[in-house]
């Protein structure tokens, strides 16, 4: 097999595998697939890493088939080692990064991760790496309320109401020249639509991740609103002032939410939504006329 072929094969490694490489690079190895699945889930969803793995509810909580496939594929490419070990009662998998995998991670994958994101991922990983696979599985169940669909539904409805409250603030602070407030309101409107659609989902894992990310988004929007209500300051400056060193910004949280919604068929990304979902036909016709003189098109 030529080196050219190997290079072209390696370039087909999906971006989501960065999370897997990161964890194995930091820990050296992970024992049991259950622990690996849950660690990736925690790092991805608490550190808000977009374009990650799709998780659905399975026997032991959140499970990603994509992650399972990636461990197989990357082991075939020699970038990780996937070894079946005979346990006392059952066999289990042991995952380890190989030297070529480490080199690939440092040369290619790390370039796509910002310093702040790596800090966040490391913080989450350090918090959960010490637990056994069963402890971690149970913790994930509890933390994300995966067994409690009714509680999730109630919280989603509550959040939708709270979002309405913070939206009212930003509507009162709105003025036409401010792109930040326009985007804040657009994001909030998108989130309302996403929460409404997600209520009909059966999978509690997707619902829970969306709920938690939406709560974080709401809290950030509230924090910026609090600063702006007391001081005459640009909302972008307020956000930068509030954003601690590695803390995800409002835009990063929204990016994560959009990506989650798109990958789980909740909603397309904001800029890809069809106009029919956003305005009535009459509104569209009026806007077309009004913006025509600017040579600006309303439709995508």
């Amino acid at each position, binding site marked *: 097999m030529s080196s050219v072929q190997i290079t072209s094969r390696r370039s087909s490694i999906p971006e989501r595998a960065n999370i897997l490489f990161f964890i194995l690079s930091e820990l050296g190895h992970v024992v049991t697939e259950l622990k690996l699945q849950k660690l990736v889930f925690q790092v991805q969803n608490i550190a808000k890493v977009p374009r990650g793995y799709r998780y659905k509810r399975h026997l032991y909580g959140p499970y990603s088939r994509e992650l399972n496939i990636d461990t197989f594929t990357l082991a075939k490419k020699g970038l990780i080692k996937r070894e079946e070990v005979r346990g006392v009662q059952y066999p289990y998998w042991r995952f380890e990064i190989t030297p070529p995998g480490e080199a690939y991670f440092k040369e290619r994958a790390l370039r796509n991760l910002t310093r702040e994101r790596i800090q966040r991922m490391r913080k989450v990983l350090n918090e959960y790496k010490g637990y056994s696979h069963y402890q971690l599985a149970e913790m994930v169940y509890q933390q994300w309320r995966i067994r409690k669909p009714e509680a999730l539904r109630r919280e989603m409805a509550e959040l939708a109401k709270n979002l309405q409250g913070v939206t009212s603030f930003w509507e009162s602070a709105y003025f036409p020249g401010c792109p930040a407030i*326009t985007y804040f309101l657009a994001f909030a409107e998108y989130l309302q639509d996403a929460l409404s659609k997600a209520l009909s989902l059966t999978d509690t894992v997707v619902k829970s991740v969306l709920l938690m990310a939406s709560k974080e988004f709401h809290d950030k929007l509230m924090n910026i609103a609090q600063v702006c209500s007391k001081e005459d300051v640009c909302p972008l400056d307020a956000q930068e002032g509030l954003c601690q060193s590695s803390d995800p910004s409002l835009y990063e949280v929204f990016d994560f939410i959009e990506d989650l919604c798109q990958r789980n068929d909740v909603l397309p990304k904001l800029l890809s939504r069809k106009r029919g979902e956003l305005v009535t036909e009459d509104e569209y016709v009026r806007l077309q006329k009004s913006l025509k003189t600017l040579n600006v098109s309303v439709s995508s």
Partner: protein
Amino acid sequence: MSASSTVAKEARTVLTYTINERVDNEQIRAWQLRAQIISRSQKRLKNLWKRVGVLSLQGNVNEVKKFYSAMLKDPRTRAKLVELKKRKRTRQGLMPETLDMIILSEAIALGRGDGDLQFMSKDGDFCEFTEEIEAKYGLRVLSVEDALQFKVKLERSIQ
């Protein structure tokens, strides 16, 4: 042809303002649609900027402030500034907006290195004072309307 980064920034702000104003006038909320229109327009504007050079320039805005303050003292030029204030609804006092004065200061700074520079605008704060600006700074102000008429004449003469 060049523009300054201040001009590029102002263009982005004005674009957002104009789109929002038009949507507000139709009494439509549709924040996501606004975000879509603004985003697409900004992208198009960015591509258009690639056809000209966008320069980071450093001008002396205090010098320009003194220039307009002096014009406030002359009754003829003061009258023009009063008229401009009436036309520009958002203007607070008689002086031009700070951003406009920064843009002029950048053009002056650029013009000092180049004897043959023309400053194109349709802003009354510049176009109403072409003689004064040229006399003080040697910078020729060309209104957009004049430039368009010149273009039409040129095209006709070529045909």
